[in-house]
């Protein structure tokens, strides 16, 4: 068990090799004209940082990188919400295993077509969490280090120690509470929410033209950042992501108020797996767990 | 006999010459008072009653057919007082008219033809229809006001439906209408048509105690002062065995059982001494005195 998982403990050479391979593939496809642009990461100005990049010029392929700082889920840039990118034409995208699950989900939701994408998978040992040196909570329990079903996969996986699954532990801790204790927990967290909607902005699945929560006829969710509306917003969002969220945890990463949003998504994913054996983002499914049914579904909760 | 406009031949039946002599006496008294002629069929025979048809239908039919033939000798429709005799005589006419085979057998047995000519009428029918309730009411001298009567039909007066055709088989009113014409009040009660068990009076008196006991109890419950019957067999069970029933059931009835002719005769002014009240087992005189009828 390694409770203080450090990204530095992973050999930097692994990232360098992956970076090289990404650059080569990007260059190849851009030169060949197979794609109009490559969506990837580039180094940030600050040392040890990275940010999303869209490369259309083969000569700029060398700007692409892969490092522990490549946290962003680039699938976001392919959704309809980011129309200007899609308009460039056929795209290549660099994805970690977790990002790929979002891509697969989007395909199932009629938002992307597999044949319109060139997917460059990158084997990911883990990326940073809060604080540069710490490994992200999601990476500690990652089961998709190596993306499957890509057009090309680069990088290799080192032997990784078993990390402490902090997120699972936190989930278990919450589940063991009484409803009143949980209510207190979430009430405290949601009270802090400032409704900046960073969670929504970064979520690959929040691609609606108009969010339900922005509607005012009728107003289903109060928009001002007051506890009542905050609670409603996070419940509605969790419900809308149930069965769809692939667990990239970008919402939680982006939250300026440190609300453990991914716990909600993890919980829903866990329940849907238990109830209907569903796991999001592993294969393109025409119907998610809440868009289909079996006649013998559990109904023990119904009188 | 021609002085009356209504004349009948008369078949009293065995009981009226014995245990039901008051029925016979009161019938004669009543008819005399009403100006109705009544001539007894000479040397009539027993109709066979229930025992005969119970085990030997041909005998039963033959006895009745013989009586019908004897009645031909006297003018006028045949008036019958006893419900059992009435039922047998009517049933004989009915069955023989329906079955050619039976008619031939009977004709052989009685060595004569079967007569269908003579209408067989129960006294009730004569009073209610032939005489008419208006004439009956007009003849009343001493209305039976204040007397609450439970009219008891028994089983044989109306059944089976197609035979006597005296009145509605399940809800007859002829007795009520007749006694009503004499000014009596009648009570509505449940056991008007139940069987009294007459057939078992000799062999299984226990049966009689049960059946007749139920009848008396029902009349009592309905608030009747007395019962009125038109059948000597019923009378035999309800009146003669009343004390026995009281002992067996522990109920106290004290319910006089009149023949309908007794009450009618009283109403049209026949002297009570001629109506055989003295031969009734349950003494009716206290009741009649109480109501100011004697």
């Amino acid at each position, binding site marked *: 068990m390694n409770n203080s998982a450090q990204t530095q403990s992973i050999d930097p050479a692994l990232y360098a090799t992956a970076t090289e391979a990404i650059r080569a593939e990007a260059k190849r496809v851009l030169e060949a004209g197979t794609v109009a642009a490559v969506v990837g990461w580039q180094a940030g100005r600050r040392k040890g940082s990275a940010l999303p990049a869209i490369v259309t010029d083969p000569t700029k392929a060398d700007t692409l990188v892969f490092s522990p700082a490549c946290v962003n889920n680039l699938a976001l840039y392919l959704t309809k919400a980011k129309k200007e990118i899609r308009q460039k034409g056929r795209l290549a995208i660099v994805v970690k295993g977790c990002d790929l699950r979002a891509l697969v989900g989007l395909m199932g939701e009629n938002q992307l077509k597999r044949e319109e994408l060139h997917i460059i998978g990158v084997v990911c040992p883990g990326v940073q969490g809060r604080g540069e040196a710490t490994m992200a909570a999601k990476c500690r329990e990652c089961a998709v280090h190596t993306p499957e079903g890509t057009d090309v996969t680069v990088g290799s996986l080192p032997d990784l120690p078993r990390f402490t699954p902090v997120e699972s532990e936190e989930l278990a801790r*919450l*589940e063991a*509470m009484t*409803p*009143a*204790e*949980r*209510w*207190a*927990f*979430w*009430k405290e967290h949601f*009270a*802090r*929410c*400032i409704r900046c909607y960073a969670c929504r902005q970064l979520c690959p699945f929040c691609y609606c033209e108009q969010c*339900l929560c922005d509607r005012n006829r009728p107003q*289903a*969710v109060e928009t001002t*950042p*007051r*506890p*009542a509306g*905050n*609670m*409603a917003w996070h*419940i*509605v969002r*969790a*419900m809308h992501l*149930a*069965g769809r969220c692939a667990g990239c945890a970008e919402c939680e990463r982006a939250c300026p108020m440190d609300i453990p949003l991914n716990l*909600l998504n993890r*919980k*829903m994913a866990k*329940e*849907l797996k238990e*109830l*209907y054996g569903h796991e999001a983002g592993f294969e393109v499914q025409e119907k998610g*767990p*809440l*868009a*289909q*049914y*079996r*006649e013998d*579904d*559990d*109904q023990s*909760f*119904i*009188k | 006999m021609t002085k009356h406009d209504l004349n009948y031949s008369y078949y009293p039946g065995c009981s009226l010459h014995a245990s039901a002599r008051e029925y016979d006496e009161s019938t004669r008294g009543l008819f005399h008072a009403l100006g109705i002629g009544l001539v007894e069929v000479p040397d009539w025979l027993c109709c066979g009653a229930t025992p005969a048809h119970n085990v030997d239908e041909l005998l039963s039919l033959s006895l009745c057919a013989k009586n019908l033939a004897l009645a031909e000798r006297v003018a006028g429709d045949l008036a019958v007082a006893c419900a059992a005799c009435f039922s047998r005589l009517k049933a004989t006419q009915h069955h023989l008219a329906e079955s050619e085979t039976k008619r031939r057998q009977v004709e052989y047995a009685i060595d004569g033809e079967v007569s269908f000519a003579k209408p067989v009428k129960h006294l009730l029918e004569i009073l209610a229809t032939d005489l008419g309730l208006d004439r009956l009411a007009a003849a009343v001298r001493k209305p039976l006001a204040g007397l609450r009567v439970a009219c008891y039909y028994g089983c044989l007066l109306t059944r089976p439906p197609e035979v006597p055709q005296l009145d509605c088989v399940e809800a007859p009113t002829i007795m009520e209408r007749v006694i009503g014409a004499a000014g009596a009040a009648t009570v509505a009660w449940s056991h008007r048509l139940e069987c009294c068990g007459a057939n078992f009076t000799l062999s299984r008196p226990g049966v009689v105690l049960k059946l007749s006991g139920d009848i008396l109890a029902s009349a009592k419950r309905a608030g009747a002062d007395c019962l009125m019957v038109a059948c000597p067999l019923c009378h035999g069970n309800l009146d003669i065995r009343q004390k026995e029933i009281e002992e067996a059931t522990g109920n106290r009835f004290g319910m006089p059982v009149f023949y309908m002719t007794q009450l009618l005769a009283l109403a049209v002014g026949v002297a009570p001494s001629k109506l055989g009240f003295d031969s009734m087992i349950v003494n009716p005189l206290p009741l009649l005195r109480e109501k100011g009828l004697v």
Partner: protein
Amino acid sequence: MHGHKEKHAFEPKIVAFVCTWCTYAGADLAGTSRLQYPANTRVVKFPCTGRIDPVFILRAFQKGADGVLVSGCHPGDCHYMAGNFHARRRFAAFRQLLDFIGVDLNRLQFSWVSAAEGGKWVEVVTELTERVRAMGPMPEFRELEAEECWSGAIDTPELKEAYETIP
């Protein structure tokens, strides 16, 4: 049934979301059969349980419901063939979410009541009403409505007093 009726200190507010074909008709049948049940329930009619959005349940709690009932056709009896099957999954998931948030699921009842089950409607409504009555008012969402982010909780006596005076 008749005569004396107990008065309770607390009368819970129950909102029932029902489909028009089965449960609404079942409730109608309870009426035509003159069955009696507590008067706490307010019925909102939907064409089908498939139409019932979890947001409505949330909204009902926010608007002061102490209990919510969702009821429709038995599986296989849906007028629209499959609406209730979809609803069944949707609410199976939603109740887990509410539970995780900390809502006591005793306040949220789901049932199948057919058009022929007037008696069952009475049973379900009565049971839920009595259960919620025993639990008392639902404070959670109602408190949230009254709270402001920056105050967290009303813990100073002055604020509390000022708050109490608000009608």
